[in-house]
């Protein structure tokens, strides 16, 4: 439906920004994501899966990216990686794709409304959380290649 088309556009343009397409002319890179179960923070999970898949495929990337979802709860506190229940109860849910180079914002998508300060706070929290996710990428890749 329309929602899937919108998500595809977000993912495609995020990947297009990091994949060095110049090195692969006249080539189509097909990224297929199948949702097995959705328990909240779906978009950032898709982003993480996409990045690791691109890594696994050995494609030349300008930077890695990771997806982080922040939920702004009714009392004003920020919750990272919310469950579906927490997303529903939240005032606003913001998803960012953070690039590994200088933790810049590659993609931003918001649901619900928030003030500018709250958005900046969520962004800062997401940038800090990105470190954890990139470390996870490193560990996963290390594990994968140490076995074989």
């Amino acid at each position: 439906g329309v929602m899937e088309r919108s998500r595809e556009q977000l993912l495609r343009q995020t990947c297009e920004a990091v994949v060095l397409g110049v090195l692969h002319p006249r080539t189509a890179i097909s990224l297929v994501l199948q949702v097995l179960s959705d328990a909240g923070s779906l978009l950032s999970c898709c982003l993480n899966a996409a990045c690791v898949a691109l890594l696994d495929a050995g494609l030349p990337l300008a930077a890695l990216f990771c997806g982080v979802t922040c939920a702004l709860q009714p009392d004003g506190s920020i919750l990272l990686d919310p469950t579906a229940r927490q997303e529903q109860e939240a005032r606003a849910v913001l998803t960012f794709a953070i690039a590994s180079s200088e933790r810049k914002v590659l993609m931003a998508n918001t649901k619900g409304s928030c003030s500018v300060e709250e958005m900046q706070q969520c962004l800062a929290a997401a940038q800090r959380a990105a470190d954890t996710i990139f470390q996870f990428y490193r560990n996963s890749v290390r594990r994968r290649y140490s076995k074989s």
Partner: protein
Amino acid sequence: LSICFRTVEPLEYYRRFLKENCRPDGRELGEFRTTTVNIGKCLCSITTADGSALVKLGNTTVICGVKAELAAPAADSANKGYIVPNVELPSLCAERFRSGPPGEEAQAASQFIADVIENSQMIVKDDLCIASGKLAWVLYCDIICLDYDGNLLDASVFALLAALKNVQLPLVTINEETGLSEVNLKQKNPLIIRKHPVATSFAVFDDTLLIVDPTAEEEDLATGTVTIVTDEEGRLCSVHKPGGSPLTGAKLQDCITRAITRHKEVKKLIDKVIKSITPK
């Protein structure tokens, strides 16, 4: 000679202008194109719609028609009506769009508009309910692009807002004896619009420069786009950055600041136009 250069090396041609902090059409980097809006049956000339508006942002022309119909509310939200936005990019607006099922850009734009309506709460669905569990209004908002010259999202959000402000809903009562609805076309009330969201789009060039209100040519040359939707209280209804070159938090903040200024300009324009068409 400059036409040849523009065709052969469009990006380099553009860079020459950007170095001087201006653009080929003479605008500054933070300047919008001339915005005009026509609202209502007399000026906008969709006589069959309950509310209509025509917005021109430079050459980009978008028309929005709102039709209200009656329906039964959904089982799980018995006191809520529906708002169904639909953005169409017919093949007449630009050569890149072919006729047939809606392409990705049209669908993504429809989803964006639906999100803006939901996030900003400009129309609360509870206000559209007539009788809980039995009858509610459905507002079909059709946004059609007549001429695509970039910055579709800004024009669409503006057209939607203007059209919704123009909608007059007839009073509907449910006859207790027969259980049927009775529509009183003589008594019409305007829609309750709680918030006025305004979208501001930016194009990112060479990962660093931000230009406001890109034309179609600028969008093609840009390395990314950002759209910020704010309401009158300065709250963010949507930060839409679908991929593209990475931006720092500070650059995003610059975009938001410009968006808040733009909101004031657009609000003034809309108020002026509404006042001019309201019968005294």
